[in-house]
């Protein structure tokens, strides 16, 4: 691990000021960053500790749910109002990592965790995300876990967050604060596709910080579900996951929002599937027809073609679960 200075500001203003320098990096729960530091994937010269700035509140109101960025994953997952109004969030969090990691990890940090692509995390290999222009050995290499949607010839790294998939289906909005002020960005516009610059992962500007995530409340959110398929029963990243938020009125699908994880270079909203379902009679006929479009546009490698079928089946199962 490269040496760094540790700054422990007591307020958000002080934290933003301390981060306004080259080589500075915020540290929230630290569960991902500590691994990246130990493996020399990242080497900041200053860590700005967010522990003392607060930002841990979980609140609900007429506009919906608001999760401050330093709220712990376990606290959000256990929150009764979250479980009732946005069950997919609680389910995605409880399917994430391990209990110890969830006691440490934060909402903001979870959204900004780096990919689990083995080439990214091993400095013995080239990686365009870690070292722009060095190449991507994953595309022709070990790619079973990697993305079939949203990749480029520079990068096919999967976005690893379960929470981000649920929040994407729930139309969440990210609140940012930085040297230039405060702004709100829909989560669907927050992550960038790798294209020519896989090292640029979000629309965040230098020195900016996620301060909160807000999620609207509606009947579909109350009937939201998260399905995660993985190689082990627990403590494993997704091969494929699906978040669905759905409302049926008089047998007709009124609202349907779907997002997939484990398959995309960012949390992957499925607008074609949603469009094929809206206004249809809820039932297997419509579900099968729509789920067949879930992998449209996929570019699998030699190793991850199975994800196309798995994604379609996961979407079907999610729709069945949400209307059971």
């Amino acid at each position, binding site marked *: 691990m490269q040496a760094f200075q540790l700054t422990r500001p007591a307020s958000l203003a002080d934290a933003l000021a301390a981060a306004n320098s080259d080589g500075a990096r915020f540290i929230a729960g630290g569960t991902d960053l*500590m691994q990246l530091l130990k493996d020399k994937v990242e080497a900041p010269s200053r860590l700005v500790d967010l522990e003392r700035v607060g930002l841990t509140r979980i609140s609900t109101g007429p506009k919906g749910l608001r999760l401050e960025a330093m709220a712990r994953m376990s606290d959000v997952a256990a929150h009764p109002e979250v479980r009732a109004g946005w069950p997919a969030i609680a389910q995605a969090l409880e399917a994430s990592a391990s209990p110890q990691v969830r006691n440490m990890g934060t909402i903001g940090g979870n959204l900004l965790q780096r990919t689990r692509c083995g080439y990214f995390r091993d400095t013995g290999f080239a990686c365009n995300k870690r070292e722009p222009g060095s190449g991507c050995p994953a595309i022709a290499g070990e790619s079973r876990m990697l993305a079939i949607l949203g990749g480029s010839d520079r990068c096919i790294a999967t976005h690893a967050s379960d929470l981000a998939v649920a929040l994407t289906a729930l139309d969440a909005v990210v609140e940012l604060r930085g040297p230039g002020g405060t702004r709100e960005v829909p989560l669907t516009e927050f992550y960038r596709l790798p294209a020519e610059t896989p090292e640029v992962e979000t629309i965040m500007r230098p020195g900016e910080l996620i301060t909160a995530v807000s999620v609207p409340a509606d009947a579909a959110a109350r009937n939201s579900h998260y399905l995660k398929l993985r190689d082990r029963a*627990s403590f494993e990243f997704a091969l494929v996951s699906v978040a669905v938020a759905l409302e049926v009125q008089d047998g007709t699908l009124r609202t349907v929002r779907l997002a997939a994880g484990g398959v995309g270079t960012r949390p992957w909203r499925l607008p074609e599937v949603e469009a094929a379902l809206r206004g249809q009679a809820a039932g297997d006929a419509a579900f099968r027809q729509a789920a067949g479009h879930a992998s449209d546009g996929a570019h699998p490698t030699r190793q991850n073609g199975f994800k196309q079928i798995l994604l379609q089946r996961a979407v079907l199962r999610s729709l069945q679960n949400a209307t059971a």
Partner: protein
Amino acid sequence: MAPSVTRRIVLGGTVTGLAIRPGYSYADYTAPAAAPATSPTVPAEDRLDLALQVNGRRLELALDPRTSLLDALREHAGLTGTKKGCDRGACGACTVHVDGRRVLSCLTLAARCEGKEVTTIEGLAAGSALHPVQAAFLHHDGLQCGYCTPGQIMSGAALIKEGHAGSDAEIREWMSGNICRCGAYPNIVAAIRDAAREG
């Protein structure tokens, strides 16, 4: 009364140095050329003066900012009950409680624990009375080599407090952050189930 010597005392040492030194000679031992894992390479003025509260005692340490809580406990406080397995958050061997919650000490910077109460396996028992989870691990033989055991016990004790011991399936899911390479899982689950019932 003379204290009985246990493996834990021998391995554990004390804050001020090893109370009981192992009786072998270092004559044949060649120190590794590389810096130790904690890399105490920063000059003294760059070290942080920290006061940590561990098992009810105040520890004053001067540490490189990079030092993990795990290394602070093992290398600087002489509390070697907490084990280093993967050092990347994947195995759970380093599980301790910080302010009553189970966390991974390998992914925690020691400097971020100032003002918090850290509990390690050495601080779990109430004096000479074992914690119910410790007693249940003995009763059910919930270990083989024992390396993962301190982490398993710290995790199991927290799991019961969290209310996640409702069924064997629930215990397994909420113990998934603790890996046992020997495969003592059935006895670990049995131990936690029993300890939860007694608690």
